[in-house]
Structures are given as C-alpha cells and as structure tokens.
C-alpha cells in the first residue's frame, strides 16, 4: 500500500509577498472591514446573548442523565451494572435490590452519578440493554455550592423529564 503524497504549494516567495508590508496592509484592510462593520452597527455581531438567549438543544445532545420508566410507571432499569462497568470515568455507583413485581428480578435501590466525574461520553446510554438510562434531558448547565450536590441519586434521575418525544429521540432530530 502506497501512501498518498499531497504536495502543498508553498506561498510567500513572490517579490510582492517578500516585501511584507503590502500583505500586511491587505490583512489590515480585512480586519478593519470587520471592525468598522461591527462598530457602526453592533447588531451584526455573530454572537448569542447567552444567558438571556439560550442555545438550541437537539435530541442528540448529551445532557444530564435521567432514568426512564415503563408505561405503568415502574423503573426500566434492571440493575445489570452494564453502564457502571462500561463507564470510563467510573462515575456510576449502583446498588441492586429485590424487585418484587413479576417483570424482572432486580432493580436499583441506589443509583448515584457523580456529575463532576462524568465526562458525558454517552457510553452508559449505549451500553444499556433496557434503554433505561438516557442523556436527553437537555440540561447543560449544572451549578451548585458544594461538591456533594453534584452526586445525584435515583430520585433525581427518575424525576427528570425529557423535552423531546420518543420519535424525536430515536430519529435524533426534531
């Protein structure tokens, strides 16, 4: 197998470019064009006025996690430890317990995610055989006053709702 060699044309050797100043002035003309346009009318800036204007979050966006439920409201998670095993940041801590109903055997009695450890890679979502954990809450800002407040538990994970419908989530777009 031969390697594709791409010869890149070297620039900057013409007398005009060797003088520097002409090219410098050309560059300055470009930057001044940008400056004066924005200076005279600052509505032309390419900016989003974040916090007031929030970014558009698509269903594919990996935001904060949540745990899903069956139609009858029971927890989908079966405490199989797939996500915990697969997690490269080791931020998921699950404790399994007896389920009690006739769906499956186990269910998590503790499901903690340390959001300061989490790298939002989405491997837990990919690993899950039950589609029980998703990252589609659309939450992208997390603030707190203590480190402990970033370890979220089962209740918090189950409480969160997704702003997207199931079809949107599966299609990956709105």
């Amino acid at each position, binding site marked *: 197998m031969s390697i594709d060699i791409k010869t890149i044309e070297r620039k900057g050797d013409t007398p005009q470019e060797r003088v520097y100043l002409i090219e410098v002035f050309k560059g300055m003309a*470009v930057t001044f064009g940008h400056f004066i346009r*924005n200076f005279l009318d600052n*509505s032309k*800036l*390419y*900016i989003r*006025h974040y916090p007031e204007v929030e970014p558009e979050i698509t269903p594919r966006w990996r935001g904060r996690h949540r745990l899903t439920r069956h139609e009858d409201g029971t927890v989908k998670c079966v405490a199989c430890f797939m996500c915990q095993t697969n997690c490269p940041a080791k931020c998921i801590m699950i404790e399994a317990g007896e389920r009690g109903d006739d769906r499956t055997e186990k269910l998590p009695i503790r499901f903690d995610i340390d959001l300061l450890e989490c790298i939002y890679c989405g491997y837990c979502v990919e690993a899950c055989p039950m589609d029980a954990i998703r990252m589609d809450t659309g939450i992208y800002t997390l603030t707190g006053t203590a480190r402990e407040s970033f370890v979220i538990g089962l209740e918090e994970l189950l409480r969160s709702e997704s702003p997207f419908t199931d079809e949107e989530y599966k299609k990956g777009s709105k």
Partner: protein
Amino acid sequence: MSLLDTVVTIFRVLFAAFIPVCFLAVLVWMERRGCGFIQDRSGPNRANIFGFRLAGIVQNLADGLKLAFKEDVIPGHVKYKFYFVLAPVIVFTIAIVSFAAVPFADALILEGKTYLMQGIPTDLGILWFLALVGFSVYGIILAGWSSHNKYSMLGGLRAAAQVISYEIPLGLAVISLLIVYGTVNLTGIVQYQGQLLFGFIPMWGIVIQPLGAVIFIVAAFAEANRIPFDLVEGESEIVAGFHTEYSGMKFAMFFMGEYVAMFTSSAVIVTLFFGGFQIPWMSTAFMVEHTRLVVVLLMLLVPVFAYFFAGWIRKNNRSHFPRENDPDLVEAKWYIRVLWVAVILIELVLLFFLIAGAGGAAARILAASLQITSFLVKVTFMCFVYVWVRWTLPRFRYDQLQKLGWQTLLPLSLLNILITSAVVVALS
C-alpha cells in the same frame, strides 16, 4: 518663581504623569472591545455600576479591583527577592517617565514668558526617549533572570537580543529625521512639521520621510514588545515569558507598563511623523490671530458631532434580543443627556473665548487646549493602530525577527540616511 510659573509647572507635570495612566483604561478597553469587533464578537460588555456599563469601560475597574486583591506571590525558589520586585517597577516607571519629553501643545507664551508644554521642559527631546526606552528592557531582562525559571530566562534573553537588533534601526531612523528637522528638541520638530509643502500639504514626517516612518514604526512596535514582535511573552512557546512567575499587582505593573509603553511610543510616533500637536492648516499664530473664526467654527462643529454621536449611541446601545423594558434604552437615554449637557458646557466655555477675542492670553490658552485635543486624538488613533496590528498579524519567529532587524531594517535605514542627506545637501 511667580505664581504663573508654579501653576504651569504643576499642570505640565500632572498632564505628563496622569494622561498615560488615564489612557491605560482607554487602551485596555480599546484592546478588548477592538479585538472583539475585529473577531465579530462583542467583548466585555456586562460589568456595570447601577446599570451603567460605559460601553465596557467598567470592566477595567472590575479587573483592576481583582488584581489589587489577589495574593501577591513571590515563589519560594526566587533567590533575589529585591530584583524580583524591582523588575516591574523599572518597566512601569520607565514607561511613564519616557513620555515626559513629548510636547502636547505648542510653546505657550503667557505674560511675555515662553513655556514649553512638556512634562520636563528639556531640549533633550528625542534623545531622552531613546535613552529611557532602551533602559526599560532591563526591567524585562531582570524579571526573566530573577524569576529563576527556564521559560522566564528565555523570555529575558529574547528581550535582550531583540532590543539590540531593534535599537539600531530605531536610532538610525531618528538620525535621518534629525538631518531633515535639524534639531533634537521635540517641540522644534513639531513646529517644523507645521509648515506646508507646496503650499497645501502639511509637512508631516510621514510625507517627507516615508521610509524612515516605516522603519521607525516597525522598530517601535518591537521596542514596545507588541505583536508581531512579542516574542518576549510568546505564550505559545514559553508560557508567559518574563512574567510567568508574577501575580497580583506585580503582574499588573508589567501589564500597565506594556500599555503605557504603547501610549508613549504612539505619542513619539505621532510627534515625529504625524505632526504632533499640529492641527493641519491651522498654525498656532493663525489660531491666536483668528480666535473668533476658530471659536465660531467649533461652536458649529461640536453640536453636529454630538448629534451623530448621540445617534450612534441610540442605535447601538440596545439589547439585540427580546426583552421587556429594555434597561439598555434607559442607559442610552442618560448617556445622550450627559452628552448634550457636556455640549452645552463646551458651548458656554467657547462663548467666553468668543467674548475674550483674539491676541490675548485667552486666545493662546484656547490654541493650546485645541492642540492638546488634536495631540490626544492622534495618539488614540495610533494606539488603535497598535491594537489593529495585534489582531491582524501572527507572531514573528525568533530567527525571522533577527533577520528582519539586521538584514532588512538596518540596510534600509542606512540607505535612508544616505538619500536624505543627499537631498538635504542638494536643496540647501
């Protein structure tokens, strides 16, 4: 010493000491908002006092406060703490003092006595600047050496090598100027530039010494350690160069020193090449003789300028997203009110000059204040050029910098001296 002597001396010293420091705020603001606009973003525009943001200038106060309250660390491995503390002091002090010889208005004649409008009324002029600006690099070298750290040391070494290769073209460019102007006194140099070439072109240094101007400006950029010649800092190569180990107010001293040096070298560039305090086609004598004409012209121009400025404020000081009771509009309303009050005050002062009439001390003071305004406007534009270049060009590589200094600028400046002296000899 009469009372007038004392007043003029105090005014001169205060002007030379405080204007560079006041410009610090303007320059930092110009740098941050300017680079924002050049890169199509808005720059700092949130910090406010009671909702007044002054287009982002309040951010400087916040930054200054932060730096003042930060811990001032002297790393444990620093052996010579005295030199470590001395270095930023040298950089800052030298930057301010080198402005002292720059004239900001024409020589003022009051009660038959002539007062040179410079911080220090000396005839040394450009020699004072050259001597001191070469000294400021010692602060940087000292900082690099006393930080006792490889990156800082490299930064200091680069500063030393850079200053040797740029001091020479700088000095030689000045020599060709001195051949033309025939004096080292900066006030004399600016008075020379008040003449007209062929009767209509202002005889500014840039017109009669274009090559010298280019060499001097390039070398001045290197002297002030600004991009494209800021290898001394070179954050992508040597962390932060000479000020890697500095924090808090000591870092702020370096930072302020850099901006004051930028102001000073802009002032010198303006003085040497852009007519200094001269207003084109209006000599001091003309302004003193025709005070009434000048005042009437100003009284008409100031409201026109204010009208367009107010329009600009109204257009740009509003929120660009849906917002109830937009506070920015209220802010803009206040700015415009303050602007018109300022215009009324200026008109009243001008009215006084209109009554006072031509020829007297009032006319001379008016001429001087107009020249100060002209000087500061020119310096602001030159500082903008510094900012503008910084956000346009990449940094030169170390060998490229040396090559440019020794192989291009040095022969060019020698050639310039040759041509200039030939022309001067031929014409005289």
